[in-house]
């Protein structure tokens, strides 16, 4: 029967002065100061606005918000491998920050569930699914790129691999698995692919003069996401600075889902009156920001593809 050796007393204190002087602990401190409560927002104006919006406007916004609600719930539910890996790597400051990270993703899940129920009258999964256009309806007519489901296929797969590495207790395997997971989740999904979505909602609800609670909620979510994104890129930077060969892992993960960045996706194109090219171009800034934060070189071929005006998706069916 396996036994666990009890740690000597001096090894039971995990939070060191060096950690408390570091950048990850600073994010933890900030997160604990920036708590907000979705139940404190006033949804009454949004309810009135929603009723007077056109059907096209309502469908455009809800096509985005149902996707974001499910995405927030998925990432809340899939974060555990990062916590397990941070524990196994002895990075207690990372564990501390991740405790706020998971709480914040849960809060975002709650916010969108409340907004859909209070403003749109959508409470059940069936009601929300009716507004969800399927990813396979987004097609690159040139045939060069395909779009995947990084949140619903990639993150669980990378999470399983990271948990396997944690169980192996092989430090290098855990570090590599952590970089793959953080790259996909924090740097690529949160830090590049989803960023235009936030801007679309804030820009359009501002231009239409509607849905102040949704806009405030999105701003609060974005403030939290800024810490999550830069936690992922900072931890990758730390590991890559110790092992420069790990940079290749970042590019491999981005390459696997690069197709999702070369055009605007089906759920991002449904809001009437958008300048889609503006949001497409901004993906380059987000990608280059992530590379700068990680201390790695951006892939110019990917940037060229994102900016290539001959590449754009077509959407065959608007909702699933």
């Amino acid at each position, binding site marked *: 029967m396996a036994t666990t050796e009890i740690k000597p007393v001096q090894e039971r204190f995990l939070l060191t002065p060096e950690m408390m002087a570091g950048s990850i602990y600073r*994010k933890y401190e900030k997160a604990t100061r920036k708590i907000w409560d979705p139940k404190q927002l006033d949804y009454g104006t949004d309810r009135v606005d929603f009723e007077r919006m056109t059907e096209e406007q309502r469908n455009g916004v809800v096509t985005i918000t149902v996707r974001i609600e499910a995405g927030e719930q998925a990432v809340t539910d899939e974060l555990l491998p990062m916590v397990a890996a941070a524990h196994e790597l002895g990075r207690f400051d990372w564990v501390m920050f991740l405790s706020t990270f998971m709480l914040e993703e849960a809060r975002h899940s709650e916010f969108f569930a409340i907004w859909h129920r209070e403003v749109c009258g959508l409470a059940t999964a069936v009601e929300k699914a009716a507004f969800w256009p399927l990813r396979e309806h987004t097609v690159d007519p040139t045939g060069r790129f395909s779009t995947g489901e990084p949140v619903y296929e990639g993150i669980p797969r990378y999470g399983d691999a990271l948990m396997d590495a944690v169980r192996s207790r092989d430090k290098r395997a855990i570090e590599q698995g952590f970089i793959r997971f953080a790259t996909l989740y924090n740097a690529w999904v949160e830090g590049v692919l989803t960023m235009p979505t936030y*801007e679309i909602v804030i*820009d359009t609800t501002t231009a239409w003069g509607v849905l102040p609670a949704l806009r405030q909620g999105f701003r609060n979510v*974005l*403030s939290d*996401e*800024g*810490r999550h*994104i*830069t936690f992922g*890129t*900072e931890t990758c930077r730390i590991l890559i600075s110790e092992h420069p060969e790990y940079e290749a892992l970042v590019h491999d993960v981005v390459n696997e889902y690069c197709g999702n960045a070369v055009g605007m996706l089906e759920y991002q194109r449904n809001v009437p009156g958008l300048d889609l090219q*503006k949001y497409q*171009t*901004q993906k*380059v*800034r987000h990608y*280059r*920001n992530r590379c*700068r*934060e990680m201390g790695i070189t951006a892939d110019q071929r990917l*940037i060229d593809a994102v*900016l290539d005006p001959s590449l754009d998706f077509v959407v065959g069916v608007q909702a699933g």
Partner: protein
Amino acid sequence: MKRWECLEAGCDAVVTAADDEELIAKVNEHVGAEHGSYELEEVILAGAEEVDGDDG
């Protein structure tokens, strides 16, 4: 001094400021006016570098 370089495609603007608070405000003035967008506070701080001040 803090220095931040805009990485929007085709933009090479550089913003400098005395401290984090000023940098965040000046970066978002630039990103809003030039690109119709915004930059997150944490992203600005993560992309900023410390440079020698120029008292000039």
